[in-house]
């Protein structure tokens, strides 16, 4: 890759900063900000805009109209800054391995904010509605769409316990104790009443999904802990929403009655279940829509995004939990949508989600930094320190207490190491900040103090906990994420186990967890899939879908690796079908048998030729984005591969020699011309053209066996050349045609002239033929 020198990095950074500061007006911030523009002066713009002028001025050749593009320009500039920062940090590997990205971004935000303040402007503040409407949804959708459903549902009870009971505990503990501290403190804090404290407690007690994602993503912790903390951060949104509204509503009144509490509980159920239902409805709609998109593949990703966003917004209209709606929508639609959409759309969705959530995430942290500088602050040592301590204590007590109860019901118990990580991973983030920012200063005169306290807690959790969690994870030797690829054996046995456990439950007679899961699956297969998945794929059982996916992956890997003699790891060339097929007893024939070595050679040839037909596609240089061949082409390749395999099997059963003619190769120039014209469709064409047509003909009249393979090369009009030498035929393989566009290293292999395979002579003598035609045909 390129190496950007630190000096150039700095220059870029300063340039962007300068631009930002220069234009620096708080358009994104509160409306009370000053609206001054240091660059744009009044008279000039007016002059350019008005038609009628009092005196004739010369026609303006070059004019300056900044106001016109102001808003999008500034937004783009901020996003650009965020992205450049992200870029910069990853170029400094030492720094990014010690400090998590979120910390660095906050620091950058602080710097930018400080610079803006220095210039005399008011730095923009993270507006709550921008945060909730534009910055938060992509992150949540990204999380929800790729949520590992299996682990999530297996641990749902635990997650709910932590999310609901844990958050309630935290809120009341922190709020109550803070109230006590305020009363004790005396003169400055005594005005803070109980409800305000409880409100503050409920805001600050919620674990923040953005912060958790940002930190946990980098430490690669094992899946159980990840899903526990992350699931908790998602599901506690409902609790936070209810508590927030409850306390906010009644803070003006001043008292809360028992009915209010009961209504609060009902409200909680409505908020959470309502959010989920709304999300599920939109998810089903999206799945249904995707059933019909086979002709307009280009807009498929759009449906996914739009329906999800609508789900979020619809939930927010009714003050339901938007986060839960978004999660439910993503999780519900995913299996059906993925069955319906094309591979390209899937990649697009994945990449757009990752991109948006990444940008959002970066912007949020930068703005947190800027907002810190912007203030307004009111620092009160006692309050802030008390908040911090109580938060930590509440979290630890909550986790320990809950785990004690939960472990009675879990099979896989949570160890104390797990508990520590869960407690330590309870980070607070921008959601809490925005919620406080939304508070009305009339009702909450101490809002600024709250703001300061929250920012302090956020900083503490993100910096201290975020930075130290990685070494702690290593120190405590917490299990890390296993990067193993799922093998087909595991898949088979997992499914087998599922059925087995369901069966045992049925024999036992009690309807456990497996029974209901099985029932749900059957319902899903019978009714739901038929509605929501287009065509034949609705009937495809999971095992077959998995197998096809694996084959597809292997085929793509094969192409990616350049189609050389290296096979993908899952199907090693070292063990072939021959090794596992039971040997047939040698048939009693008068004709000589092919030696095993020769059979293997034949097989190798066939396989290599199949590989060479998979030309290397130009792959875009993104991390995991692979070149997406035209979809139908892949099906063709897979079909051909199957045929090849069948051919191999038949050969292994044959005990006679074979003769194989083949078409002449395409000349390189023809190949190049063909490729250059249509980069997308050539994959399809070249595959069909370069696969050798193998007509296996047995010269001996005695053998009844003959194998014929469909001649796929027919179209280009190449004829099989048959040259007779001593009674046998040679098989000629077309030299592989690779795109010459960018790869020069492979040309040596490619330019090889026609390779001559072996000839098998119709020779009654068993020994004579062995050494004649053993030419090296490859390499």
């Amino acid at each position, binding site marked *: 890759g390129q190496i950007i020198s630190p000096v150039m990095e700095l220059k870029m950074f300063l340039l962007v900063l300068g631009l930002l500061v220069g234009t620096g007006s708080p358009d994104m911030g509160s409306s009370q900000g000053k609206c001054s523009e240091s660059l744009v002066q009044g008279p000039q713009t007016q002059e350019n805009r008005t038609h009628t002028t009092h005196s004739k001025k010369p026609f303006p050749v070059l004019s300056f109209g900044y106001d016109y593009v102001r808003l999008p320009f500034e937004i783009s500039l901020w996003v650009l800054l965020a992205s450049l920062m992200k870029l910069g940090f990853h170029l400094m590997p030492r720094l990014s391995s010690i400090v998590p990205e979120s910390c660095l971004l906050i620091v950058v935000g602080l710097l930018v904010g400080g610079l803006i303040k220095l210039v005399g402007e008011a730095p923009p503040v993270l507006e709550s509605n921008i945060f909730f409407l534009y910055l938060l949804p992509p992150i949540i959708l990204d999380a929800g769409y790729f949520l590992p459903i299996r682990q999530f549902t297996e641990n749902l009870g635990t997650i709910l316990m932590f999310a609901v009971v844990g958050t309630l505990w935290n809120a009341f503990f922190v709020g109550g104790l803070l109230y006590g501290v305020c009363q004790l403190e005396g003169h400055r804090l005594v005005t803070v009443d109980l409800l305000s404290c409880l409100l503050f407690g409920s805001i600050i007690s919620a674990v923040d999904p953005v912060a958790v994602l940002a930190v946990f993503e980098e430490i690669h912790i094992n899946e159980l802990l990840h899903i526990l903390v992350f699931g908790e951060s998602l599901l506690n949104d409902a609790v936070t929403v209810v508590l927030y509204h409850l306390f906010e509503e009644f803070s003006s009144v001043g008292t809360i009655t028992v009915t209010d509490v009961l209504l609060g509980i009902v409200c909680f159920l409505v908020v959470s279940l309502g959010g989920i239902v709304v999300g599920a409805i939109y998810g089903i709609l999206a799945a249904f829509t995707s059933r019909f998109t086979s002709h307009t593949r280009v807009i498929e990703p759009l449906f996914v995004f739009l329906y999800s966003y609508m789900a979020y917004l619809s939930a927010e209209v009714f003050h339901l939990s938007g986060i839960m709606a978004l999660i439910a929508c993503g999780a519900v639609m995913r299996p059906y949508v993925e069955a319906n959409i094309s591979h390209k759309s899937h990649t697009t969705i994945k990449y757009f989600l990752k991109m948006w959530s990444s940008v959002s995430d970066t912007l949020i942290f930068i703005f947190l930094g800027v907002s810190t500088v912007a203030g307004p602050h009111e620092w009160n040592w006692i309050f802030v320190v008390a908040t911090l301590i109580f938060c930590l204590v509440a979290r630890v007590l909550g986790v320990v207490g809950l785990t004690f109860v939960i472990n009675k019901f879990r*099979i*896989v*118990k949570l160890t104390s190491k797990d508990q520590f990580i869960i407690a330590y991973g309870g980070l607070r983030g921008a959601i809490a900040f925005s919620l406080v920012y939304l508070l009305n200063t009339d009702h909450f005169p101490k809002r600024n103090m709250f703001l300061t306290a929250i920012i302090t807690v956020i900083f503490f959790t993100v910096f201290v906990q975020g930075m130290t969690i990685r070494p702690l994870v290593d120190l405590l030797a917490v299990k890390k994420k*296993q990067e*193993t690829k799922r*093998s*087909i*054996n*595991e898949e*088979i*046995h*997992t*499914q*087998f*186990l599922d*059925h*087995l*456990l*369901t*069966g*045992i*439950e*049925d*024999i*036992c*007679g*009690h*309807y*456990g*967890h*497996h*029974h209901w899961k099985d029932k749900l699956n*059957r319902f899903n297969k019978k009714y739901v899939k038929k509605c929501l998945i287009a065509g034949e794929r609705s*009937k*495809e*059982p999971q*095992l*077959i879908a998995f*197998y096809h996916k*694996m084959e597809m992956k292997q085929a793509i890997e094969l192409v990616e690796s350049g189609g050389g003699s290296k096979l993908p790891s*899952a*199907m*090693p060339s*070292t*063990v*072939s*079908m*021959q*090794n*596992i*097929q*039971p*040997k047939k007893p040698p048939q009693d024939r008068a004709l000589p048998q092919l030696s*095993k*070595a020769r*059979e*293997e050679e034949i097989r190798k040839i066939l396989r290599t030729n199949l590989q060479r037909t998979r030309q290397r596609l130009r792959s875009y240089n993104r991390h995991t984005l692979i070149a997406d061949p035209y979809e139908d082409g892949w099906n063709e390749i897979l079909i051909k591969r*199957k045929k090849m395999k069948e051919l191999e099997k038949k050969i292994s059963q044959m005990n006679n020699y074979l003769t194989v003619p083949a078409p002449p190769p395409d000349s390189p120039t023809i190949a190049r011309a063909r490729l250059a014209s249509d980069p997308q469709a050539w994959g399809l064409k070249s595959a069909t053209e370069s696969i050798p047509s193998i007509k296996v003909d047995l010269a001996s009249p005695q053998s009844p066996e003959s194998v014929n393979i469909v001649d796929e090369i027919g179209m280009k009009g190449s004829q099989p050349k048959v040259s007779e030498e001593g009674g046998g035929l040679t098989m000629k393989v077309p030299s592989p045609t690779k795109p010459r566009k960018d790869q020069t290293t492979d040309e040596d292999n490619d330019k090889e002239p026609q390779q001559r395979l072996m000839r098998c002579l119709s020779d009654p003598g068993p020994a004579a033929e062995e050494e004649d035609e053993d030419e090296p045909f490859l390499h």
Partner: protein
Amino acid sequence: MGSFQSLPDDHQYRTLSQKTGFSLEQIAILHNRFKQLSQNEETLWRDDLKTIQDLESNPIRSQIIEAFFDSRNFQKDGVGSVEEIGFEEFLTVMSYFRAPPQNITVEQREEMRRAKLRFLFNMHDTDNDGTITLEEYRHVVEELLSRSGALGRETAKGIADAAMLEVASISVGPMAPDEFYEGITFEHFLKILNGVEIEMRMHIHFLNMDATVLCK
């Protein structure tokens, strides 16, 4: 309680509890279920299990039922299958699905794991030759896919072949063309299922609650 000659008494339960690890209440509940299935007789037949309605839709029904009548699972070093089983054997088979208790040593956990995997292995290795051959494995995959309609035996074969190749490559490594991989031995089976935490996943919640009233 039914017309038993020998009423289950505490002593009998206690020995069973020691052998299988179930609690006394759980044994009582399972005994009730056993009686319900066997129509109050002392032994259980295959047909009794086949009457369970919920089992109808299970693709590997016959293999599950066979597992109950397979002497290898009775922990008495027997071989071959029997026609009828008593409560003790029923309970022994059920004990393979107990969750590992919390405070056991690593060796005990490993032992439990091996026992459970042995049970699974026996389910696949129907001819009891100690290896799962390609044919047996193909049979397994076919059964798994049997409820999914006629999607071709070829696909099932293809999947089984691919899986077998994978096992061979993981367990044995590179093989010369004329070597023959006999089948999956128990050791290989352990190896390929290393990633799946069997002792955690292969368990049923045996509640202390009498569930016979709930089921049909």
